[in-house]
């Protein structure tokens, strides 16, 4: 049997990134401030984790204006969705084998 630990995705080792992905998986989009509030993070902290996920092409940024206020929202990409599903499957596999 394959070692399920090797199937875990390093990108989701951080609880914060795990939280970001969880929220994006079940919503069409989530905006920056909603994520910040949901995960109780500071601007800088959330932004750096988002940048990391963006570089992996797991999330896509959509910038727009709501009236005059800039609005940043995030969408999970098909690659991100697949990667996260595989990560969850690996977590479940590990629990089953304990």
């Amino acid at each position, binding site marked *: 049997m394959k070692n399920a*630990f090797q199937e*875990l995705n390093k990108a989701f*080792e951080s*609880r914060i990134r*795990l*939280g970001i992905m*969880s*929220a994006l*998986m*079940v*919503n069409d989009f*989530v*905006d920056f401030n*909603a994520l910040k*509030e*949901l*995960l*109780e993070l500071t601007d800088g902290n959330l932004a750096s984790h988002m940048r990391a996920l963006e570089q992996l092409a797991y999330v896509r940024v959509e910038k727009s204006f709501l009236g005059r206020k800039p609005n940043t929202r995030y969408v999970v990409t098909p690659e991100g969705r697949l990667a996260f599903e595989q990560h*969850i499957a690996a*977590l*479940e596999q*590990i*629990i089953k084998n304990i």
Partner: protein
Amino acid sequence: MNAFFKPEDDLAQIRNIMERSTKFLSLSALSAILAGVYALVGAFLAYRIIYGSDVVLYFELKSQFITPETMPLILIAAVVFVLAVSTGLLLSYRKARAAGQALWNAPAQRLFFNFIIPFGAGSLFVVILYFRGYYSLLAASTLLFYGLALLNAGNFTFSDIRKLGMAEIALGILATIFPGKGLLFWALGFGAMHIIYGGIMYLKYERR
């Protein structure tokens, strides 16, 4: 990978965030109990007016939609509704603030629109029934549409709300079978059911 890695904690975190980002969990159970109390007081006052009145209200209504006898009943209904909604908003706002969340966030908006569309359609339907003189269907249709609105909205908050919706629908059907007992079914649906389900939800989620 550190030695303290707990996959079950990660999965619990995932489930928690998924739920909190889609469901409005600041809904106050206490406000449902209070709404039920207002409804019972309103039903009691309405009962005294209807059965203490010299005129037969149904006949009065044939010629005129709003008479001196029916005015207080409409007023009671309006006061109960406004009190219940404002208590709900105020207590949910306090619950949201205590949890460090905004009241009008994405899950709240989803909950609101999924409730207001069937509820708004039902409200219009009931007003039209009233002006067309179908008084015997008022209690049944308010309960049915309210139940359908709750069933729909329950997908975006505590799932107990779906069960409350189903209970209201059942009462609505019963009210259709017994058209003369409208006030009784209103008292059960808007009074007793809110107190029962508010109580269950209070014990489950809010008691510390």
